[in-house]
């Protein structure tokens, strides 16, 4: 057994110089400190993305992206295809946990100020990937073509329509027409399974490449000298730990999928009245709730427009943080960033809770 493995390794080593890679990886070190645990969420997010790709491809074997077939095909997957229920439930749960772990990963990077020079572009690609994961969620939510999804998409695209100047055009583009129809479904299906995964993979490759080149960021203001700094080898120590966490997550996913399988609800009907208590997925909830709480008119502009503009500006500032947080880049402690981060978390949590009530 061992001989065969060695032979196979030898075969590839001869051609691709694997020895170098192993050497490179074992010489790579990951800093160890009290915030180490947060480092794992990047890997966990990656794992969820892999799960999404695998289950997504599997679902594509049976899913049909048209308004008169979508709902029925999901029903078919859930009831007729063996383990269809499992694959779909995992896809659905993993989508939610994916976004959650992206949130955690982003905030931990933010608090660690790991975006500071020279890792500005790593942050930037990550931020774009975060936005894309939200877009993944939004587009994927419509695909079962059920009542809830239908109305959530209606409301969601309506909000897009309120964006000044380009809103109407954008809404028309997203919906593929005046209203949410089968055309919207076809579009969202295209975004969800072709356009987004393509761009996302590209960004992911860049993101990982940057990390490989620059190594993992060390926390600021380590009082310890170079010798005292603890590290661990990337391979196998860190990788095994990553693997361990991935397996734990997989276990969690399996349990969630079996005990709380994804629901389907009623088929979308454009003529039916919107069901009561309609609200977007939890990761959009704080934004949705904010828009609801802003009064109809503030000074001379509409409340909704104001809200969208505010989110736009804040979001942009957030993404561009490595470029205006000069202090951190110069290695000076910047408490301001911590306060901003805490304020953001508190804001998101409180408004999400209000939205859930």
């Amino acid at each position, binding site marked *: 057994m061992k001989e065969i493995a060695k032979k196979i390794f030898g075969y590839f080593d001869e051609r691709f110089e694997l020895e170098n890679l192993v050497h490179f990886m074992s010489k790579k070190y990951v800093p160890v400190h009290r915030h180490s645990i947060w480092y794992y969420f990047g890997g966990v997010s990656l794992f969820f993305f892999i799960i999404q790709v*695998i289950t997504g491809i*599997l679902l594509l*074997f*049976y899913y*049909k992206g048209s308004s*008169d*077939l979508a709902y*029925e*095909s999901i*029903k*078919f997957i859930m009831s*007729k*295809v*063996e*383990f*269809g229920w*499992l*694959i779909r439930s995992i896809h659905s749960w993993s989508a939610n946990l994916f976004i959650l772990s992206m949130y955690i990963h982003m905030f931990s990077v933010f608090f660690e100020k790991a975006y500071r020079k020279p890792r500005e572009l790593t942050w930037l690609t990550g931020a774009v990937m975060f936005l894309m994961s939200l877009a993944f969620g939004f587009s994927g939510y419509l695909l079962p073509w059920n009542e809830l999804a239908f109305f959530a998409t209606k409301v969601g695209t309506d909000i897009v329509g309120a964006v000044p100047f380009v809103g109407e055009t954008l809404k028309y583009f997203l919906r593929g027409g005046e209203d949410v129809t089968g055309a919207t479904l076809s579009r969202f299906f295209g975004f969800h399974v072709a356009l987004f995964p393509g761009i996302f993979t590209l960004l992911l490759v860049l993101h990982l490449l940057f990390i490989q080149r620059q190594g993992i960021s060390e926390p600021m203001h380590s009082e310890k000298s170079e010798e005292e700094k603890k590290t661990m080898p990337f391979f196998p120590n860190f990788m095994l730990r990553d693997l361990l966490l991935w*397996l734990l997550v997989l276990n969690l996913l399996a349990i969630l999928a079996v005990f709380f399988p994804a629901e389907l609800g009623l088929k979308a009907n454009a003529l039916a009245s919107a069901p009561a208590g309609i609200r977007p997925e939890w990761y959009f909830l704080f934004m949705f709730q904010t828009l609801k709480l802003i009064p109809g008119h503030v000074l001379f502009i509409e409340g909704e427009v104001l809200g969208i503009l505010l989110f736009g500006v804040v979001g942009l500032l957030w993404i561009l943080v490595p470029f205006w947080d000069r202090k951190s880049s110069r290695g000076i402690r910047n408490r301001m960033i911590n306060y901003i981060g805490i304020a953001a978390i508190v804001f998101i949590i409180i408004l999400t809770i209000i939205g859930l009530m």
Partner: protein
Amino acid sequence: MEEHLETKNERRDFLKKIFTGGFLAFIGVTLYPIVSFLKPPKQEEVEVKSVSAGKVDELKVGDSKLVRFGTKPVIIIHADDGTFTALSATCTHLDCTVQYKNDEKVIWCACHNGKYNLHGKNISGPPPKPLDKYFVSIKNEEIIVSKEA
């Protein structure tokens, strides 16, 4: 010292065995659902708003056929004038399933002798309402029944 090394090695081997075994079992439990998922299901096609009622030449003039439309049965009749009619096969009286009687040219319910004409109108017996209409179209020599045109 030597003894100590030996037990250590033994323990290491045991761990390796568990690890390898666990890994193989893991591959098994993940691949099994995936392979099962990919295995074509017994019923090949998705049931939809429209349902196929078979080939045109399989339903002779004067014959009728029941097809399942979601949770409801639909009766398809090939009338003498060559037209196809699709109607809900649930009697509006007490929910029995109706049948076509070619000799009388009526749709008949065996439970209480309710009768409907070929337009689904209740013409005699207890049914209080006409049968719901379905839309029939012919695509590639196949009868397609749908709820809406």
